[in-house]
């Protein structure tokens, strides 16, 4: 039982300070949707979107967000978990099998053949969609001068970058993604991936992404992919791009020694 011997004025101050501390603690604990990918887990959950299904309207429609998240992303999550469970059961002393999905995808060629395709496709689907959700938002802010300079250094101008990204997105054939990635030398460049292949498997740090699979836009735009790409730019979220950049730069994305999932004994 908390007993307070201070006077009423100081009690108000104490309450105020406690509230501030609590708020401060809460904000430093705030999870980004992609934090989970760097954590080892027995089974991964489908994370909630950082916004409601209605909140990206009119640029991305509610029905697409719901089916995309609850249908496609959930399916990748479940199949990834099954494949991981099966692999771990078959190879009980393989520590690599128990590392985070990010670490596993970074070393995809080390996954035994039997599960490699399933984990690459479904683990890739799990992670790629998380990054797609993360870099959209209902209220994008203007790009920061830091990030703009970085883009200018790599592409000559922001307009050049946007034009190149857009034309790549319009012309990509089949299913896949278009990415803005950073490398270990802090250079930014545009990359495409087919199906659920992920730039993390190439040792890169993706900071912005558009999903070009037809399911990402067909309900609203049908064959008119260029209209989808135009709408997507309206929700591409520069402040989230910078936070994701920070995530890759910080230790959050790096595996710690001994950081594997172990079953409770």
């Amino acid at each position, binding site marked *: 039982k908390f007993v307070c011997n201070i006077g009423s004025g100081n009690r108000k101050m104490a309450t105020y300070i406690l509230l501030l501390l609590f708020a401060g603690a809460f904000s430093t604990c705030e999870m980004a949707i992609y934090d989970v990918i760097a954590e080892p887990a027995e089974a991964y959950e489908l994370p909630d979107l950082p916004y409601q299904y209605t909140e990206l309207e009119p640029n991305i429609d509610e029905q697409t967000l719901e089916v995309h998240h609850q249908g496609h992303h959930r399916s990748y999550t479940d199949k990834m978990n099954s494949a991981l469970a099966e692999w771990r059961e078959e190879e009980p002393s393989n520590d690599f099998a128990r590392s985070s999905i990010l670490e596993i995808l970074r070393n995809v060629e080390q996954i035994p053949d039997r599960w490699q395709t399933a984990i690459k496709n479904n683990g890739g689907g799990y992670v790629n969609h998380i990054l797609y959700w993360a870099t959209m938002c209902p209220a994008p802010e203007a790009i920061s001068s830091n990030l703009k300079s970085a883009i200018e250094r790599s592409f000559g101008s922001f307009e050049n970058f946007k034009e190149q990204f857009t034309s790549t997105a319009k012309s990509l054939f*089949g299913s896949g993604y278009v990415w803005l990635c950073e490398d270990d030398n802090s250079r930014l460049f545009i990359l495409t991936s087919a199906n*659920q292949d992920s730039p993390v498997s190439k040792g890169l740090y993706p900071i912005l992404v558009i999903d070009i699979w037809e399911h990402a836009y067909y309900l609203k735009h049908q064959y008119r992919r260029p209209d989808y790409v135009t709408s997507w730019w309206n929700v591409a979220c520069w402040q989230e791009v910078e936070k994701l950049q920070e995530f890759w730069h910080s230790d959050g994305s790096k595996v710690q020694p001994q950081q594997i999932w172990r079953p409770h004994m």
Partner: protein
Amino acid sequence: MLSAVRRLSNSVTVVAKSGILRQKHTLPALPYGYNDLEPTISGDIMQLHHQKHHATYVNNLNKVEEQLKDCVDSGNVSGVIGLQSAIKFNGGGHINHSIFWENLSPNGGGEPEGALKSAIEKDFGSVDAFRTTLSTNTIAIQGSGWGWLGYNKETGRLQITTCANQDPLQGTTGLVPLFGIDVWEHAYYLQYKNVRPDYVKAIWDIVNWKDVTDRYQQVIGN
């Protein structure tokens, strides 16, 4: 008769360039109305699939063949090589969809008969086993692609395989296409959304066994 005349007048548009005549590819008409494959495939999907997606492959194929001709004429080998993927995408898209429209019919479904049925039973055990294998393999395609029943001229056997994107079956594997199932999302998404298995299951209700048999007879007859 009228449709044959219409097809003929649609199919030949001759372009004279450098004195060499070249036929442009044209979008084939469907053998049925857009709504005629309902409830299996909706009229909306059929119309978009034919008038937009297939038409785009045809238009782009014509453009890229013009570019190819220019590169060949000017001895630009590097340019020729650079066009290969666009030729495969758009040419494959045109070939695949032209087969697909004929593989389906409002009067389709049921069971194969005669020589085709015997061949299926010989090479897959039973018609059910064949259907299950083609369905399972087609559903499992990652991303965009097609599931195929093909004929292997070297072994004289029927074979099931899948192709990615618009890779044409014969051009990339040598198998002669008999029946293809398009599982690009545009083929089913407006109606079936993410539930691809339901679409693949339903398509058996409209498979045009007569067309599949004709293709089989043609390849074994040769």
